[in-house]
């Protein structure tokens, strides 16, 4: 099982290296290779979760290792699914390093399978946890899109055309990507919070108890809600939307780790 995880990690790292090579050389064949490696990595990663599920006897989304690894998994598959319907030039070179980074963090966390805490014994666990983490996956893609937007915008604004101008897609395409990822991510985030709240009612008798994780999820949700709302009304698009996607992702990461390690609360057994 550890071997399976290691192999997935190496494939992601390799895919990242090949994506970088493609970014520099712009040879189509290289990109196809990178995508194939990433795809194989994604499949192995899926197998890894199935194996771990069988071994643990419960949904493997309860430790930091599992949560972060699933975060990487959802990014990979969200990215690959984009390729099917909605392609963005050189997106992979920005997404794959982040996937690899998450996998490295997962690799350095304890991979031990621990017995399930009694409070988590519920059918809500797989639903709530996977929705919440899949939201993270899409927000991470929006973050990558935001970074790409700012890099491309900078070169156009400063009139200095470096490595990005010819390689990155148009500002319009990046803005659409941003909106696309945020909308999907927001949907998952909302569902994640709602299912969590229903579960809390069943487990503890209250929908909401201002646990730090809940609070920060709500803050994250409000940030994204504001972005989407402002986009429609006063036109927070383009540059500001890109910046906000990056800020929002900061809040996502804080909710994931900051809360667990700094603030504690009922969710703190995750990690």
């Amino acid at each position, binding site marked *: 099982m550890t071997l399976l995880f290691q192999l997935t990690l190496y494939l992601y790292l390799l895919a990242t290296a090949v994506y970088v090579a493609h970014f520099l050389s712009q040879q189509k064949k290289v990109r196809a290779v990178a995508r194939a490696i990433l795809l194989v990595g994604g499949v192995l990663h899926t197998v890894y979760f199935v194996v771990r599920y069988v071994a643990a006897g419960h949904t493997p989304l309860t430790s930091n290792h599992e949560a972060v690894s699933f975060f990487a998994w959802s990014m990979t598959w969200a990215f690959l699914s984009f390729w099917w319907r909605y392609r963005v030039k050189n997106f992979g070179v920005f997404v794959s390093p982040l996937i690899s980074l998450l996998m490295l963090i997962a690799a350095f966390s304890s991979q031990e399978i621990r017995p399930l805490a009694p409070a988590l014994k519920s059918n809500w666990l797989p639903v709530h946890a996977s929705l919440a983490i899949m939201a993270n996956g899409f927000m991470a893609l929006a973050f990558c899109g935001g970074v790409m937007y700012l890099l491309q915008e900078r070169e156009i604004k400063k*009139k200095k055309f470096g490595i990005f101008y010819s390689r990155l897609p148009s500002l319009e395409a990046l803005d659409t990507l941003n909106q696309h990822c945020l909308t999907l991510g927001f949907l998952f985030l909302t569902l994640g919070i709602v299912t969590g709240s229903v579960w809390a009612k069943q487990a503890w008798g209250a929908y909401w108890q201002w646990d730090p994780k809940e609070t920060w999820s709500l803050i994250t949700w409000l940030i994204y809600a504001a972005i989407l709302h402002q986009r429609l009304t006063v036109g927070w698009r383009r540059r500001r939307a890109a910046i906000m996607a990056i800020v929002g992702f900061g809040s996502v990461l804080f909710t994931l780790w900051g809360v667990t390690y700094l603030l504690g609360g009922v969710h703190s057994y995750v990690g």
Partner: protein
Amino acid sequence: MLAESIVIIGVNHKTAPVAVREKLAFSGDCAGPLVTLMNIEGCRECCFLSTCNRVEVIFVASDPAAAAVAVRGFLFAKSGLGDAEAQQFSYLYQGKDAVTHLYKVAASLDSMVVGEPQILGQLKQAYREAVEQKTTGVILNRLLHKSFSVAKRVRTETNIGGSAVSISYAAVELAKKIFGSLRDKSVLLVGAGEMAELAAEHLVRQGIGRVIVANRTLERAVKLAQRFNGTAVGLAELTTQLAEVDILVSSTGATDLILRKDEVKPLMRQRKNKPLFLIDIAVPRDLDPELNDLDNVYLYDIDDLKNVVDVNKAEREKEALRAEGIVAEEVVKFGQWLEGMELAPTITAIRQKANTIREAEVAKTLSVLKSLSENERRSVEMLANAIVNKLLHEPMVFLKNSTPHDNPQIKLAFVRQLFGLDNESSEQ
């Protein structure tokens, strides 16, 4: 030498001014010229290329010097110029130089705007017509096909056609980087000068949705707007229009700025921050340079665009050097093929191939049959030798016997193909 029979005679923008080129005036299809050319004595194969910047005849002749004079005579027939002047305005390449020249033409290294892609299509069309008229043979078929693949190699391995090298095209390229597709976008032309017209033309060709023209005199605006199926407005409506359009091209003769930062700033909110691309091609400038500081506003003046173009041009020149390397490499390869296309090397190549096979097979057999005596071993070798020689006898006779009507190249090409002597993936 076979190579020396390949000749290119032509006129292009470098050797002859337009006043001369237009006198040659070949229009319409190539069928007429091709028939005339094939009637020139000793002309075995030919292809005729005519574009607005060049007229070229690529031909293979048994007596190249004599044919060259006739071909030049044909090219300049309508110009009224004598052969001495004709020589001055045209170029003649023979052998390896001709191959190099053709490869460069195909790869757009010889074009007025290096890297522009049209020439390859024109060359392909010229070849197609030559094939239809059956004026090409073994040599030109291979040469032209090779020139297409060289062009493709240059295009994929270098960045020669990469970036815009004219100001109006650079502006269009930038617009595409900002807006993606231009289909649902609109442009406002302020001032109806020539540069504005040129930029608008490019934008329309790239499929821009709507053109609006604002000018001091409405009459001129209406005229220009009609050309692009657009609408005309007065200069007073500038800010109203600016709340709607995506691109603004300004080229008025005004001595002062016509648009300032604090006029546009409130508009951006009204536009819901839709990006605005401002192109100022007027001298002195029309648009406040500080406009570029506004979020989602991109201002390029004429110098900025010139910089873009200069950088791109330098880039192309660098790429052109790499492309010439590729051409040189391919010319050597073609030379090798041509050398093989003679009788003696072909016979040698067949013998060599047969001998290699024979030796390998004999060695393989003898290594298994270890119990054979010296005499028996020699018999096996002789057997193999005899089979090879007898089998090769008829093809050799076929190759060496030439009747006067035979085209030796066709025969050679056929035999070489039969024996797989040019084992190089041939792209058709």
